[in-house]
Every structure is written in C-alpha cells, then in structure tokens.
C-alpha cells in the first residue's frame, strides 16, 4: 500500500509504533481487569462464601 508513497519508512514506522503502543496498553489493561476479576472471585469465596462484592 505504501510502495508508491514517498517517505514510506517513516510513515510505516509511525503507524507501527502507534498500534504497538496502544495495542500493548490495551492488552495490559485487559490482563489487569481479568486478574482483578479472578482475585475478586477468590476474595468473594473467602469472605462472602460466593457473594459477588463487585456487583454489590
């Protein structure tokens, strides 16, 4: 797609950085959210015998 464009390496590198950084942050965010949910499930079982505190 970029073969016909001048300065293609700079444009490509910019968009690659854009997607890698924002994609990486999204992955980290979702992983943290999943770990939080997992922690909360364990916590609920320990503290409330299964009642979901996140929704309460």
């Amino acid at each position, binding site marked *: 797609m970029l073969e016909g*464009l001048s*300065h293609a390496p*700079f*444009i490509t*590198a910019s968009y690659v950085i854009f997607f890698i950084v924002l994609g990486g942050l999204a992955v980290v965010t979702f992983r943290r959210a999943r770990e*939080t949910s997992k922690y909360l499930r364990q916590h609920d079982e320990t503290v409330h015998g299964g009642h979901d505190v996140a929704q309460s």
Partner: protein
Amino acid sequence: MSAFMHWFANPARFVRIADAVTPWLWLTLAISLCAGLYLAFFGSPPDYQQGDSVRIMYIHVPSAILTTGIYGFMAAASAASLVWRYPLGSVAAKSAAPVGAAFCFITLATGALWGRPMWGTWWEWDGRMTSVLVQFFLYLGYLAIWQAFSDQRRAANAAGILALVGVINLVIIRFSVEWWNTLHQPASLLRRGGPSIDVSMQWPLATMFIAASAYAGAIILTNMKSELRMRRAQAQLQSMTQNAGGYRLETG
C-alpha cells in the same frame, strides 16, 4: 455541579455507568479507526510541501492533543481529590496516567519520525519538543509515585500535587511555539482565524482524533473499574483482618 459530583461519587453507580458506556466507546473506536485510516491513506491528498509524510500528522496531532488533554483531566481529578476529597478523583487520575504516557510517547516518536524527512533532524532541543519531553517525564514521575508508596492515600496526595504542579508545563507546551523561535510550526488548528489546514486533511484528522479519544476513554474507564473493585475488596479484607486482630494487609 457539586450535586452532580456527589451523585457520581458513588463507586457502585459509577461502575454501572462505566459498564454501559464502555462497549459504545469500543464501537466508536472500531468505526472511527477504520474510517480514519481509510481517509488518512486514500481519502486525503499529499501535502504540497511535505508530500506523503503529512500522513504522520493523522496520528501525531491527535496523540499530542490527548497528551495535554489527559494531563489536564488528571490535574482536575487530582484537584477534586485533594481539595474536595472526591473519592473517584485519585482513581480517575491514576487510571488516566498510563494512557497519557502512551500518547505522549507516541507524540515524541512520531514527531521524530516526521521531523527527520522534513527538518533533517530527529530531535531539536527547542521549546515545543523539550516541553513535551518534560511532559513525558511528568507522566513517568506520576506513575512512579504510585508505585513508591505502599499507603495509597499518601500516594494519592503526593501524585496529586505533582499533577497540579505539572499544569505549568501545559501552558509552556501551548505557547512554546509563540514564545521562542522553534523548528516546530505554530498552532494550525486552535488558532485565531480558524484552522490553517486544508479541509481535505481536517476530516481524517478529526476522525482519527475521535478514534484516539474513544480508545483513551475506554481504557481509562476499564482501568477505573479494576481499581475501584480492587480497592473495595482490599478495604473489606483489611476491615476483616483488623476486626479479627489480624495482620496488616499490603495494598497496591
């Protein structure tokens, strides 16, 4: 205003609202990103001076606007937390910081990649570039403060003060191109007399800005929900262990 803040301050209510809003933000992101990329590469012409490298602008400028916008949001949230003890303030500021840092890094990296073919240099220690680099360090410093304190309240206070002090740098970023001679061009969007960019380039720019804003909103809300749920669970556990005469729970 204070009634609205008070109504919104209920974490359970906030989580319900955030749960409802977040999918719409992801949908907005998907649509506007597809449209924005199409417009950026196929629906807009090359610049008469810069050629195709102007297409870097469609990610550089939205990232730059969000870098300062998110920091402004963090400062406002920190002020709400420090001054009015608004409970969601520090959570919002903490959740926004990684997003702002990411956009700041993108601004610096794409600025260097745009500067090399246009100016013949990757970097120049001029007012605009240096102040944005300082902004990046402010973001890193803010995040480091949260990691440095085990007591979340003390961390929120210290990080909030840094966020407020850092507002000075937002002013420097905004006016750096007017105060000093610089390689960086003056403001071309938010200026008297309207934008100086051709309308054919304003559309991809606006669309990519919507995409980047939707992304930022979705990630910040997701971070806030995780933080609130974790704090609630930890507070309950801490209260239980204290009642049982137990040990001190590490937070963070």
